């Protein structure tokens, strides 16, 4: 069940929530919609489900246009950010709801509900009410409920937004496995880069209502199409400079730049992990602070004549040898992305 969205737009009053977005997800893919909060991801998801009416544009599911189809006929499973479980129904009734309203025979319904509960590791919780469950359990009930009527498509709005970091990672892995097992085309919305890149087959980055870039996680990481993308993915340093003989100078640090003519003004985006720092008596930069972030160390420094720069290294990295606040360092930029200065 592939999804094709063409030129989708939506405004709320004067606010343009979604601005001419086109995207496609192939049959069986697990796709992530990634972007800052309030960027329009959820609105797109809701328009695919028919919960929100698009101002213009089309949505195709499995090759057929569904724009004029009511939500209840689209056969889309939707998992809400805050689960939206029916609070007055037991787990069993929640999961069976989609089958009940479609008048599925009682014994068939019971079998399917039990199958879903087993799949979600919820056996034994049939008679519980939502408020008697943990966050992770509610999440799984919401998934079971969405999947029970065998939807053609599964849409998840910030599925792990309301659980803590540890459970989040676990649920993420589990969702990936589940997806592979069930083979249902899925899109999940997230603002967590790690989650998007580690789980999805395809990542679509949405910001300010527009699709910035879409593709496989590796491509998005390594080939940011725009300055926004280069800055958005990972933690980045940004400098303005001018190219001379394939090199742009940032203070006294030489940054290799290809594909720009002499004299062109460029904006350099340098990710915090594409840098090497080393101790150097007359180096072009000074270290200010070192932050120990668990398995990584973040080093804040400043380049004379250019401004602050930061880098991240593994905790025991040899690159950190001899580096301490106040010392002078040399900097090697292993990879910089240059964009024509706007």
């Amino acid at each position, binding site marked *: 069940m592939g999804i094709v969205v063409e030129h989708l737009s939506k405004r709320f009053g004067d606010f343009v929530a979604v601005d001419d977005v086109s995207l496609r997800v192939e049959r069986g893919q697990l796709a992530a919609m990634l972007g800052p909060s309030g960027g329009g991801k959820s609105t797109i998801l809701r328009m695919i489900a028919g919960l929100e009416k698009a101002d213009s544009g089309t949505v195709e599911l499995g090759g057929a246009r569904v724009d004029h189809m009511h939500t209840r006929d689209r056969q889309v499973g939707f998992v809400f950010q805050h689960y939206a479980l029916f609070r007055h129904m037991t787990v069993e009734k929640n999961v069976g709801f989609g089958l009940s309203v479609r008048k599925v025979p009682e014994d068939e319904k019971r079998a399917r509900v039990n199958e879903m509960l087993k799949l979600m590791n919820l056996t034994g919780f049939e008679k519980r009410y939502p*408020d008697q469950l943990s966050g992770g359990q509610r999440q799984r009930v919401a998934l079971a409920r969405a999947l029970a009527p065998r939807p053609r498509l599964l849409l998840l709005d910030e599925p792990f937004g309301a659980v803590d970091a540890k459970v989040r990672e676990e649920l993420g892995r589990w969702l990936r496995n589940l997806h592979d097992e069930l083979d249902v085309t899925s899109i999940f919305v997230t603002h967590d880069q790690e989650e998007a890149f580690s789980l999805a087959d395809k990542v679509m980055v949405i910001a300010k209502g527009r699709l910035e870039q879409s593709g496989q996680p590796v491509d998005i990481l390594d080939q940011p199409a725009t300055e926004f993308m280069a800055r958005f993915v990972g933690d980045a340093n940004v400098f303005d400079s001018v190219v001379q003989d394939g090199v742009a100078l940032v203070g006294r640090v030489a940054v290799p730049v290809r594909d720009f003519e002499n004299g062109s003004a460029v904006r350099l985006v340098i990710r915090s992990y594409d840098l090497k720092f080393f101790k150097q008596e007359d180096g072009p930069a000074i270290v200010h602070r070192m932050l120990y972030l668990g398995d990584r160390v973040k080093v804040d420094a400043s380049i004379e004549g250019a401004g602050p720069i930061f880098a991240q290294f593994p905790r025991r990295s040899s690159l950190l040898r001899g580096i301490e606040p106040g010392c002078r360092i040399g900097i090697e930029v292993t990879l910089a992305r240059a964009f024509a200065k706007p």
Partner: protein
Amino acid sequence: MPNPAASSKRPPPWALRILVLTYLTIFLFAPLLALGVESFREGALSLWQGITEPESLLALRNSFLLAAIAVVLNVLFGIAAGLVIARQRFWGRALLDGLIEVPLALSPVMVGLAFILIFGRTGWLGPWLSQFGVRVIFSFPGLIIATLFVTVPFTAREVIHVLSEIGEEEEMAATTLGASRWQTFWHVTLPNMRGALSCGISLTAARALGEFGAVLIMGGAITGSTHTATTWIFTAVDERNNGAALGLSLVLGLCSVVLLLLVEKLRARAHERR
């Protein structure tokens, strides 16, 4: 732990407690106590005779009937108002939301007068209605209108509040699962309103039983016809009919206590299911 230096300057914590208790004693416990003691002194027989005399029975019947009518109509109106105000988006919605609470702020006597201007003998609709032999003022329909006016806010407010708080996502979820509008209302929205409706019913009934000003003006407290429990107590006090006055007061008091306990219990339960 209170810091000793600070607590020596501030009034001790029990001072405030005594203030609150004194206030409640004067305005709540004392009158209830007086009612109880005086009823006891009056004697059970006198009270029973007071309650069962024909005018008292008529007044009680009128009051309970009015409460029942108010409850039924307010449940229907409350559901409709909840769906309109908490779920639909339209211009003037906030205004409508505010209007529903107006009866809480208006004096029932004033409103009674306003209705007389509409339904009275020389009012806007009065002459026209009398052509069909319908009399509103000084008859039972007048009592109904008065009671409905003062009870409008209770159920609707509870339902609107609960629906806004719960939000629309459960209903959206039902729709994605294939439920029709009716199925969504019946299986999701209505059960979510249940607590609000129960609270609304209790408050409406209590308010309907206790209303005095509006039913006095619109019903006229006519002996043998439009007395309600409250207007009959008022008349009985005037006529030094202590048996009826105390007896009916006890009945009303008892109903209120039961209804309030019910509200408390329902609120607590509704809170649990959240």
